[in-house]
């Protein structure tokens, strides 16, 4: 075999080094494309929608007249749906996570549950909507209500809560559990008094990220029949007369902010697009704020706990 001359090798090395340097720039540019998109998105929404953000935008119902329309019914709907979602997904998700991490025996059934959770995370959200339409709306006769919507989104974010719970619990060292057992604590006492409090930071992060995803979900709620035009509020949950608390609102028809936005953006009149931008801006601020809180929690708990 002919030996390559030193100058050829030198050239090839220099060339490769140049490529290496060039790639550092390309890589940085690629990440900037992502960030630039985020900035363009926010800027676009702000330019179009900021003029619409006035007090009456939050206190008016949707209307035929773009300038008078508001998001009152949809932000109330979003909050009520989130209450149902959180109160379903959080206990079930944490329960499932604790079971899988602390209690589950290593057998085929546990393996099935684990594979299943991994697969659920990859199911398109609209398929959850179809399932909820067939099951909640018609089979269980919950109707096209806040209850159906809240449960649908709860199923959707359940894998997120379970995975976050498991990761948080796994980070608690075995020595903590053994110390509790050594003092005669039962398994549940150990879990509820020691393991869960230590892992609360991680669990909370997962719950917030899950809820921030649920707030922005549109497709499954359209599928179960959320209305795009609602000019009334659900029955109030707190009453003046006995028994003071009412759950009538669970059965109420509803709209949520992303659906209101979708309705406005799919109208041909440009005036309504401004309303859509304003709604999008409110949504973005909410989801970004929730994610910022989650990042802060993750950062703080990682820093504070030193085993």
């Amino acid at each position, binding site marked *: 075999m002919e030996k390559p001359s030193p100058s050829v090798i030198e050239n090839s090395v220099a060339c*490769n080094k140049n490529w290496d340097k060039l790639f550092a720039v390309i*890589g940085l540019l690629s990440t900037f494309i992502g960030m630039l*998109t985020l900035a363009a998105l926010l800027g676009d929404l702000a330019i179009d929608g900021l003029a619409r953000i006035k007090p009456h935008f939050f206190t008016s119902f949707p209307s035929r007249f773009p300038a008078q329309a508001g998001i009152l019914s949809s932000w109330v709907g979003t909050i009520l749906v989130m209450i149902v979602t959180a109160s379903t997904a959080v206990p079930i998700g944490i329960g499932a996570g604790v079971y899988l991490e602390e209690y589950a025996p290593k057998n085929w059934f546990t393996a099935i549950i684990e594979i*299943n959770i991994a697969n659920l995370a990859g199911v398109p959200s609209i*398929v959850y909507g*179809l399932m909820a339409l*067939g099951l909640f709306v018609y089979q269980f006769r919950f109707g096209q209500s806040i209850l159906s919507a809240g449960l649908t989104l709860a199923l959707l974010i359940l894998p997120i809560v379970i995975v976050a719970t498991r990761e948080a619990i796994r980070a608690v060292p075995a020595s903590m559990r053994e110390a509790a057992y050594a003092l005669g604590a039962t398994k549940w006492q150990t879990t509820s008094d020691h393991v869960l409090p230590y892992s609360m930071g991680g669990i909370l992060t997962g719950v917030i990220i899950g809820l921030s995803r649920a707030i922005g979900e549109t497709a499954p709620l359209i599928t179960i029949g959320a209305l795009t035009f609602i000019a009334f509020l659900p029955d109030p949950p707190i009453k003046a007369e006995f028994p003071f608390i009412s759950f009538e609102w669970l059965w109420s028809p509803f709209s949520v902010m992303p659906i209101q936005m979708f309705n406005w953006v799919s109208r041909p009149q440009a005036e309504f697009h401004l309303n859509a931008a304003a709604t999008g801006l409110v949504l973005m601020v909410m989801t970004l704020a929730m994610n910022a809180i989650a*990042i802060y929690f993750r950062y703080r708990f990682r820093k504070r706990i030193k085993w």
Partner: protein
Amino acid sequence: MSKTEVAVDYQQVREQIRAQSGSVASRKIRERIIEFGMFLCAVFSVAITVGIVWVLLYESWHFFANVSLVEFLTDTQWTVLFENPRYGIMPLVTGTLVTSVIALLVALPLGTTIAIYLSEYANATVREILKPILELLSAVPTVVFGYFALLFVTPLLQRVLTDLPGFNMLSAGIVIGIMIVPYVSSLSEDAMKAVPVHIREGSYAMGATRLQTALRVLMPAAFSGIASAYVLGFSRAVGETMVVAVAAGTQPNLTLNPMEGAATITAYIVQVSLGDLPHGSVAYQSIFAAGLTLMALTLVFNIGGYLLRKRFREIY
């Protein structure tokens, strides 16, 4: 302190414990009940899958009692809401595939480059700052991305491609692509990070640059993880709904031209759901058949990805 002062009345302590947590027997029962409750929570996640599969199959079964499977797969028109309905899923499938392929053409190169950059080039501080910001991209509500595609990206593209219609698959696909970049990049990065250090060091010791190491050593070694990232990205693109419903139009259109508008499977489901269809009608059942097709499509690609991974898996 003398020893006598620490003397403990064991009887009293025992009674205190009993008062706090019940007798041993009742404590055991309580433990059992709590464990069973949490077991039910875990089983509930399996029930979701069973529910999804059951609803899709049950309603599709009724659909296929009215529409032949051959027509469903071979007819070239999807006009369920018309007077003489035709039930050919092909136009919806091509719409879904075209937008997904465009999305992947954007997301895979961009996501892989970012993954290599973050795992091999960026230092810890840069990574800690860039990663969370990048992941915000996947936290943005999809309907907002739809707005962005229709009213920002499409007008922008129209400046270059002057005959681009207002609804088109190109801008929807590009926006979905950017949306799924964080999924592709963070999973690929994890996979590259997981490659043992000595393999990386071996490559450096031979005089390879970081780029050569990344492309010729790490990527093949992390192939399995990177392939899962790609498959997940594809699943996301196929299942994406709001961007296409807003920006790609709702007209079923059998075409592979990204410059045209076309409904996807998901956009069709949204379109039908927005109307008020009677429960039990063929059109109502058709959205479940469409959903089943969507699941079948993702399943095929997931199995393909699995086989590919098995073929090229590297074990250390």
